[in-house]
């Protein structure tokens, strides 16, 4: 009997029937946006993954070549609706660098405040997505509720909730509105208390932690080789933050500590990549407090914007900034006219999502949403 089974078992080993490709997307509840994840699964385990992006390609970079510099700013808001402020900031910063001008101190601090508000609301959007991905809708709605207060701050500052159109080449569009500093301090205080509710709900829940722990380890070397940036990288022990290591716009005059996990072991799992964003939100609150104090010290009638020439001298400029999702880069090639010759955007997610093959290998199907939620997917900037 046993002998007769041997050829059957051998044939079973040769057959490749037990692995199959499952295609998640482009319209799948897990993909927050239009993208596809092809997963090769062996039972409950993933053996291979292949992300496919590009469904949302709008020709953004080409479109900028037909506009003058000032009119590209509203377009930068549309790169990512969660990080509109940082992308406008990055663009204005790059053009200022090309022009070789220095903007007023007040504008720099206002930009810091706006950036950190943007970072917190972007991270809250991510937290909401983690909630739905993990099957806990309460987290989703609580995080969205907290996010509303920061969107209200955006309204208070510039009149728009998400596509803000606030930074300008040479400063910011308008001064802080009356009582803005009072409102922002109240919001930040309130947020720090409310955040503990969410932390009690999920971080103290052993189910949630056991879903996140011990899956999808990434080493520091892997992060470097794959070009992973942002909070995901800092969770894996890489101590690098552009705000501190290549400071722009007075970030060097603000005292803050970059949260980094696993500095010693240099290996991080999904929970570390999750935790780093939570810590970053608290850190952003500190930065906001300091920057608001600096704005108050500068005084009310200080300039917040300077006039700039419309034409940018020929040459290439490289600007980079710490986006909520990673390292955003804009590379500007100007030819002396009032329109850019070429504007290249380096999206952090485009690089981060290419790591999904490494991140998904060996995890279970049920872990994939938890693992890929840490990329914080946003398709607008990925596909451009």
């Amino acid at each position, binding site marked *: 009997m046993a002998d007769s089974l041997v050829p059957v078992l051998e044939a079973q080993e040769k057959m490749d029937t037990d692995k199959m490709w499952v295609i998640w997307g482009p319209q799948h509840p897990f993909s927050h946006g239009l993208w596809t994840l092809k997963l090769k699964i062996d039972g409950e385990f993933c053996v291979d993954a292949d992300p496919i992006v590009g469904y949302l390609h709008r020709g953004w970079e080409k479109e900028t070549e037909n506009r003058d510099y000032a009119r590209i700013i509203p377009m930068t808001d549309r790169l990512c609706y969660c990080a509109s402020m940082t992308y406008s900031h990055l663009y204005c910063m790059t053009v200022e660098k090309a022009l070789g001008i220095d903007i007023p101190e007040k504008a720099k601090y206002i930009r810091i405040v706006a950036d950190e508000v943007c970072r917190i609301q972007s991270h809250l959007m991510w937290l909401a997505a983690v909630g739905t991905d*993990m099957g806990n809708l309460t987290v989703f709605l*609580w995080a969205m509720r907290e996010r509303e207060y920061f969107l209200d701050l955006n309204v208070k500052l510039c009149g728009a909730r998400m596509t803000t159109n606030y930074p300008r080449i040479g400063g910011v569009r308008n001064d802080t509105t009356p009582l803005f500093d009072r409102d922002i301090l109240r919001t930040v205080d309130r947020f720090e208390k409310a955040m503990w509710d969410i932390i009690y709900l999920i971080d103290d829940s052993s189910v949630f932690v056991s879903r996140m722990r011990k899956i999808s380890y990434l080493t520091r070397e892997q992060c470097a080789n794959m070009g992973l940036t942002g909070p995901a990288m800092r969770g894996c022990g890489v101590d690098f933050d552009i705000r501190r290591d290549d400071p722009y716009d007075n970030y060097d005059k603000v005292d803050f500590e970059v949260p980094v996990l696993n500095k010693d072991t240099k290996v991080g799992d999904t929970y570390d990549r999750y935790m780093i964003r939570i810590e970053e939100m608290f850190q952003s609150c500190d930065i906001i407090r300091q920057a608001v104090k600096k704005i108050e010290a500068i005084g009310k009638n200080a300039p917040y914007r300077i006039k700039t020439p419309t034409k940018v001298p020929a040459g290439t400029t490289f600007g980079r900034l710490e986006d909520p999702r990673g390292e955003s880069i804009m590379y500007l090639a100007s030819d002396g006219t009032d329109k850019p010759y070429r504007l290249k955007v380096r999206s952090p997610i485009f690089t981060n999502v290419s790591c999904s093959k490494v991140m998904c290998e060996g995890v279970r199907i049920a872990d994939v949403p938890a693992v890929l939620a840490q990329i914080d997917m946003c398709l607008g900037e990925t596909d451009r």
Partner: protein
Amino acid sequence: MAEYTSILDWINFGDPYENPFTPFLSDNLPYDICYGLWEIIGGTIAWLINLLFPGNPVSEWLVCDQVLVVFALVLFMLVIFIVAFVVVLLNLWMERKVLGRLMDRRGTMIGMKGFLQCVADGLKTFMKENTIPAKVDKMTYIWCVSLIVGLSCFVACMVPLSDRWYVVNYDTGLLIIMAFYALAPFFILVSGWAQNNKYSLIGGIRAAELMISYEVPMLIIIATISLLAGSFNINDIVAMQDTIWNVIPMALGFIVFFFCAIAECERPPFDIAEAETELVEGWQTEYAGMKWGLIMLGDYLRGSVSCGMVAIMFLGGWTIPVFGGTGLPEIVFLIKAWFVFFLMILVRGAIARVRPDQILNLGWKVFMPLAVFNLAIAVFLKVGGFY
């Protein structure tokens, strides 16, 4: 048969209360109501027909004992279904409202504190186009819905609302509920296979593995309770809790059974079979419109049955220890079942979805030993003479 008047005389129903083929005895309230109702309605119709065509056999046929039983049974089914349907809708409404409050929002708001939203959603599923994908195994695909939903209805029929409001009163009541529960995974697995969809296949396998693993501790707890009560009959189990609810000596069993019940009706956090971020809708992916609505109805029926079982086995069913019997035992029972459902909603709102391997570990390595330990406690209590 002395006088042959109609063909129905060949079928001798006799007195419904002494008929061995009718399981309904006189203490069954809904049947009594339906019997009386048809006496009035049928009598009126017969009287009207007799007014128009005096002396015809139809009117006499309508008021004879045998037809009375048949129509009373039809009305009885209708009443039972309506009550079950309303209970399910109330469960759905409660879930939406309580979950809404947990999440700092209002829940549904359309009509009667949002209750009409459930009705509207139910109607919507029936209005939708009844699409069947091209490459499914049509026979299996359609029949599996009927079988799964039918099994859920069967299970729902097995739970009495009180000692006077029931469909059947078997001596093996709890075992029959579990038997119908245990049949569902096979059909879910088959329907997952029949849909020719990878999500459905994975979902079907997950649902089957989940249900099969959680039925084992559930059965052990049922054995524990029936060991204490000395019977599988639901009435006996409720009657034995007239001094103290089982939840106090059997607290461990209550917790285990509660979580097993959540897993058994595939509710979050144990909804791995239809984990929407992974498998879209799991084994229900290819079912659209009315079929999906029926499956949802079946799911909620199973949910309310699980709550009813917890209420019967641990919370004293329709009795209250201090006050004894109440005037409206059905309402007491439903309030207890809804309280259990409320706990299920709290669990759903607070906990993230558990991974399949963690669920199986929990079922086999935690709940199973706890259930056996609980059985040991029950044996100790029984031998010690406390029961």
